């Protein structure tokens, strides 16, 4: 019997515990996907992702990963960075000079 806490449990698109098609042990896989999305996966985790989930065309986990990446990209590209008001640095320096 496979240990649910080890990464070799990441068989994709198997029949789940309710007897329906889908990804079993989803929370472990979700953990891995989150690390991939955020660029914080180890080399071993990246390898597992590439060997299992990324090759599964109809996988819900894969679709989920694509959506998450799209949302992350959306946040990074569509939100304007506000410029710091010009006077603020001087105000900060004045306030700290008063403390010394």
């Amino acid at each position, binding site marked *: 019997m496979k240990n649910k806490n080890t990464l070799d449990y990441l068989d994709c698109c198997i029949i*789940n*515990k*309710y007897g*329906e098609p*889908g*990804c*079993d*042990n*989803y*929370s472990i896989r*979700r*953990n891995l996907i*989150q690390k991939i999305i*955020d660029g*914080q996966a180890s080399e071993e985790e990246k390898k597992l992702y590439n060997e299992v989930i990324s090759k599964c065309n109809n996988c*819900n*986990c894969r*679709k*989920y990963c*694509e*959506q*998450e990446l*799209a*949302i*992350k990209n*959306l*946040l*990074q590209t*569509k*939100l*304007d*960075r*506000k*410029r*710091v*008001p010009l006077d*603020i*640095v001087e*105000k*900060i320096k004045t*306030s*700290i000079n008063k*403390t*010394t």
Partner: protein
Amino acid sequence: MSSYSEEQRYKIFESEFLPHIEAMYNFAFRITYDEDMAKDLLQDTYYKAFKFIDSFHEGTNAKAWLFRILKNSFINEFRKKNKEPSMVDYQEVETYYNSDDVNEVITSDLRVEVLQDMIGDEVSNALNALAVDFRIVIILCDLEGFTYEEMSKILDIPIGTVRSRLHRARNLLREKLKTYAKSMGFK
């Protein structure tokens, strides 16, 4: 704790703290959604950073240290003044995170092409509609690029909680974007 000379204090302030002012201001604005309050919060944070500079170790992660001060100022002082209640049901978050709900992905489906057509204002509105604790994790991770470990230190919560909160925040954001997409006629 270090003990810096007056000259060293100003040097650290100029070379390690001030370069992060734009990121700090954007963080302050995104959590307050008010320019004046963001400016006050920024000034207050830098004032505190200088005052307690001896507890900062030169060469360590100044950005994370400053963000932590800003977040604490916001939680302890600014949010109290505005009496904004915390909207996050943490029990719900933990229960959600530990579940094996395979249907989650299916019900949250949103086409990637639809997302690409969205404009900045709608993305901004969706982000601002999130409870502030959820907004904060998204800003720290997706906009400022902090690692889970850094976020854990900034927010004073375990890494597991960072990740569960981030997961929940992204799902909520996805739902808000999905609602917007539907209102615009996307299917």
